[in-house]
């Protein structure tokens, strides 16, 4: 395949950055999108240029490290697929492909296509856990969990923390990420004691980090490579209102 890439190049956080055009011939349709970028980088190195920096690690769609907004869509055109699992056969020969980093104030660009997503860690740090010091756990079967709750909790817990929801959201909100964790932990019996403090603390941190507000556009759930359902934001709102207006938070 022949391709024209327009890639965001930015040498560092202070640099203004711009789109730079590259041409590639002879890309295998069986290559993944990141392997195509590997080929581009090999070419750039051979030509004495600076290779494009991008984040990636597991390359099997689970670590959440890869990102990239491809032709205006986070993780590219294929639904429920991370960039690392997107293959070039999904593109047309001769296509022009725009590649940009996630855009959000809370995800500042580090270099080229690499952004800093530590805001997500700080949201989890603010309460996205169940306090269970090692060694204190009761026997696993002492608390049964109804299967539908366990299944729905799992569905929410599948979030890989990649940030595509933020990248896709017209408001730059991380409500899907936040809602996924609040829903997961809020459905487990073990998560009840901290439930109301958790949601308030996590949401406050979300807002302080500079993420936007949710207007329920639903772009996040479509962009989500794991298809986290939009109703987790409903659960998030319910828990938040119960905790604050409902006076559950102590």
């Amino acid at each position, binding site marked *: 395949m022949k391709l024209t890439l327009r890639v965001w190049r930015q040498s560092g956080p202070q640099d203004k950055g711009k789109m730079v055009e590259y041409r590639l011939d002879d890309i*295998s349709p069986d290559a993944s999108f990141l392997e195509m970028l590997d080929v581009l980088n090999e070419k750039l*190195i051979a030509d004495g240029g*600076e290779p494009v920096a991008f984040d990636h690690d597991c390359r099997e769609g689970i670590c959440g490290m890869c990102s990239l907004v491809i032709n205006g869509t986070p993780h590219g055109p294929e639904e429920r697929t991370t960039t690392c*699992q997107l293959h070039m056969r999904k593109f047309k020969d001769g296509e022009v492909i725009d590649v940009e980093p996630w855009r959000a104030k809370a995800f500042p660009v580090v270099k080229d296509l690499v952004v800093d997503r530590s805001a997500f860690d700080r949201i*989890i*740090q603010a309460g996205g856990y169940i306090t269970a010091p090692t060694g204190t756990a009761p026997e696993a*079967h002492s608390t049964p969990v109804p299967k539908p709750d366990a299944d729905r909790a799992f569905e929410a817990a599948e979030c890989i923390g990649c940030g595509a929801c933020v990248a896709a959201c017209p408001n730059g909100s991380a409500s899907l990420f936040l809602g996924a964790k609040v829903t997961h932990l809020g459905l487990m019996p073990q998560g009840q004691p901290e439930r109301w403090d958790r949601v308030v603390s996590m949401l406050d941190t979300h807002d302080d980090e500079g993420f936007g507000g949710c207007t329920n556009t639903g772009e996040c759930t479509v962009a989500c490579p794991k298809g986290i359902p939009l109703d987790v934001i409903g659960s998030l709102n319910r828990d938040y209102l119960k905790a604050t207006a409902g006076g559950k938070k102590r």
Partner: protein
Amino acid sequence: MSDSFYKSGEPVVDGKAPKGPIEDRWTTRKFEAKQVNPANKRKKKIIIIGTGLAGGSAGATLGEAGYHVQQFCFQDSPRRAHSIAAQGGINAAKNYRNDGDSVYRLFYETVKGGDFRSRESNVYRLADISRQIIDQCVAQGVPFAREYGGLLDNRSFGGTQVSRTFYARGQTGQQLLLGAYQALMRQVDAGNVELYPRHEMLDLIMEDGRARGVVVRNLIDGEIKHYTADAVVLASGGYGNVYFLSTNAMGSNVTASWRAHRHGALFANPCYTQIHPTCIPVSGDHQSKLTLMSESLRNDGRVWVPKKGGDTRRPSDIPEDERDYYLERIYPSFGNLVPRDIASRAAKNVCDEGRGVGPGGLGVYLDFADAIERLGRDKVEAKYGNLFEMYERITGENPYDTPMRIYPAVHYTMGGLWVDYDLESTIPGLFVIGEANFSDHGANRLGASALMQGLADGYFVLPNTINDYIARNALPPVDEKNIAAAEERVASRIEKFLSIDGDRSVDSFHRELGHIMWEYCGMERTEEGLRKALELIPALHEEFWKRVKVTGKGEELNQQLEKAGRVADFFELAELMVIDALHRTESCGGHFRAESQDEDGEAKRDDDNFGYVAAWEWAGEGEQPVLHKEDLNFEYVHPTQRSYK
């Protein structure tokens, strides 16, 4: 045997394992270990490298205990460590199925599965702790699969006769890791753990023969920094990426372990690598990694290749009597369900005969046509739908219509830094946990045991042994000279990479090294091949230091520089792996020597000559490594030859 490629040293002995009945040893050790006064823990610093299941759980637990923990990972968040990619499940001897499971049975099966090359004491402890792990993870809110009654579900896994594997769909590793990550982040919030993501450990700070700290590079801005502590813990994972193509993450590397090895930590059994039979084959030169598909596919898929070589017809055009269902033919009783190593080797053999399918002839068919006919498409879809989807996404072929193509790929490394019962390496104050150490799995790891070991080490073992070292050693502040020396080593190495300005990319070297390793130190090893590798690797290594091109500067985000450091260490490791494989003339577990097989082509162990752990000492650049043997004694499980006919 030729002694010309290594030297022999003194035996190495695990001095910490208590004697007595096996079931009491861990309790005894915990009791005998000295404790650190709770008020003093705050003043004691522990450095942890890596945030996977082992590192994450250790950081959370040691932070909770009150130690001052500093934790590092090269990824942008601790949640991305490669433990996250584990699919299948985690074993625990809970006996919830009432099917005769017990700690002893899990212990027995793990020792046997490891082909009698692991320590009984360690494995028993692992089996014992397995039960607590499940309790711990459930308390953290890990959404394990459950039955309608609300209790935990189990499934069975290869190499065992009971149903003891706990799982969360095909994402068990992810859910367990997120549990550990969340617990870790709680300690970060509490101020007990200082977290340094996007920091890579590049050297160890040594003082008086002890590990006293690390030198790291901040991957964002390239700053070289040092951190000192009372003890250092490596939880930096395995080294499968020495093969370039593996199921490991792109960033997985051996650097932390290797730097420690160069300071005197013995490296044990480096040649034991596990090769997983059901991975998606290589599609071309662009390939950067391999994707594993759950082994459960072999429950219903039939493995075959064309009877004659070079058959390029489409699979549907090859009539039944021109197909060779070779696993069913060679192993009539186990058929397509033979263990991982046997299935892998058989696939390699048929491909070597020129009967492989797909691009490059490196693949065999895994055919579901019979299953679809027998069970119906719906049933097959319900069972394997997500795997079929993943396969189609990657290959563009629909496995409902045309057979899947699979090929074995490097998946896990059983070898690693040698540790004693306390998980302490031969460098005092340097502890090694998870896949990075060599313990527990022997020469072969059973499915669903890696998660168990990582969490056992991090949650339960290390936090009960590291206190003994810290309590016994009140250490003075580290001498500035020693810090400066370590920083200087790192800085000069980086400078060297940047100054070569050659004409070959780091990846091109890594690819070539991987190819040599796969060819000569992969699924089947021969004296001739290994000796050839022992010529090829040093030559390529030399070329690397002359011709590698590392672009950019040291003081910025520089992914080429990161890779260069990792590949340079893989070169040295590769040589040691080949030496280990060459010296071990028996076949066992993940190490198959073609010279050591019975008349049926089965692996033949040589317990009399090789019933030991091979722990290698670094003797300096260009020097032959020194072999230290740790003899293995089996008091409870007596070695037998495996047979799956």
